[in-house]
């Protein structure tokens, strides 16, 4: 199987083609430099992303407070994490850095507030 990726390790944005045999990488092509290879390997074996969203606030100045994952989480869990975020609400006052959901879905990342309210 072939997978197309765009490297984001620098602004050039090389189109990288990764050829896979099952889960193992057969070849990586299209990267103009070694950083692209590393990027592609990570993207194939364990793609991770930060997630940012908002959580409802009870009795705050604004109806919602922004939150983010304290570290990146597996990419295929983005929507599961979003569901957890949308299930909770928090009482004002909220402080920047406050943990809203500890260790969300066992990812090791906390959902933390990124603003005060």
């Amino acid at each position: 199987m072939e997978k197309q990726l765009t490297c984001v390790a620098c602004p050039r944005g090389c189109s990288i083609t990764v050829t896979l045999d099952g889960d193992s990488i057969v070849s990586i092509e299209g990267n103009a430099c070694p950083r692209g290879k590393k990027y592609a390997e990570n993207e194939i074996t364990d793609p991770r992303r930060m997630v940012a969203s908002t959580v409802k606030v009870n009795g705050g100045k604004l109806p919602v407070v922004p939150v983010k994952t304290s570290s990146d989480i597996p990419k295929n869990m983005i929507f599961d994490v979003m569901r957890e975020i949308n299930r909770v609400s928090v009482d004002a006052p909220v402080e920047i850095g406050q943990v809203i959901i500890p260790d969300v879905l066992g990812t090791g990342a906390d959902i933390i507030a990124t603003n005060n309210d």
Partner: protein
Amino acid sequence: MNERMTYDLVVVGGGPAGMAAALKARECGVENIALIERASELGGILEQCIHTGFGLTYFGQELSGPEYADRFIKLVDKTDIRVFTDTMVTDVSPEKVVTCVNKKDGLMKLQAKAVILAMGCRERPRGALNIVGTRPAGVMTAGTAQKYVNLDGYMPGKKVVILGSGDIGLIMARRMTLEGAEVKMVCELMPFSGGLTRNIVQCLNDFDIPLKLSTTVVKVYGDQRVTGVDIARVDEKLQPIPETIEHVECDTLMLSVGLIPENELTVGAGIPLDRVTRGAVVDELRQTEMPGVFACGNVLQVHDLVDFVTMESQIAGEGAARYIRGELSDPEYIRPETGFGVRYIVPQKINIKDKKDVKLYFRVGAIYNNPRVVLECDGQVLSSKKKIKVAPGEMEDVLIPASVFDSLTPESRITVRVEV
């Protein structure tokens, strides 16, 4: 005018630019500073940019917009900088009288020795576009949608088409998708995106949202609410090709078609603007053509990264401090020229008597692969730097080392160009 109303420095706008400029000026010894913001909190546009990706250069950390802003708000709080929130500046006069209004104090006139303009930018509205059809609800700029979702906690639509691939549009494509909306496509008039590659990958590709280049929206349907749009591919002259028209059902059309520096106050003060950047013409200290009035951040040139806004604003803050100390008399300017491929350069002029390193920031007009960025002085190459790629969406810079200024005269010519 009572005594409290005179300040050494008045900074207009409390976004990242205004805060960094005020803090730097304070650090450089300016004592009596007012920072004026029309919103109820400091932070500017960052308050609604809840995604991460801020501060990678300046702090080496992936912060959200509000977190990035908070670091500076805390620093401002620790100083004696006088902060006015909920206060709108309505006029800046050539005599450096800053007129502002708020509910509590009414009309105030602040006499300043120096002024820093940091009003940011706003989105190009629909009026600037040529789309025929009805004017139903559901057509909005991406930034307005961002405010609805991130500050008001309200989803403005379920089926979305985005016109324009600027960063805000890309960010909102992901944001709406995360909240359960279906983002059908992002259409971009140009053959390339104006957004950062990083955003195309993480906001579109991650969610299989198609990016349709050389494509525009030609018609909007719907009486009360948008029910759909017609899209069409465009030819090299950017004219829609009728045979390619296609109907797309949607309830929301988001526009992300560019940002314009908010320069009404600048123009009102009689300060000349650059035709290309639409920001003030400035020297290397970000001083406008009106001595003692400085500009920085998105009001000067639209930035993609807040880190550069912060750095530029520190230059302006230091410049204002030097102006107030009377150090900036008698400059001798040269104007760096744009060569092949370069659309604009900031700063537009350089005082050759100052003899310090000067970084020129510029944007190119098209995508070039494996180019060189060449800095020339009087026909001699000062530097020629290999790049992997330059693109209109990413700001570039090139350094003029201080040593160069020793041999320059007001007749010298400095040029930046792209070599392919």
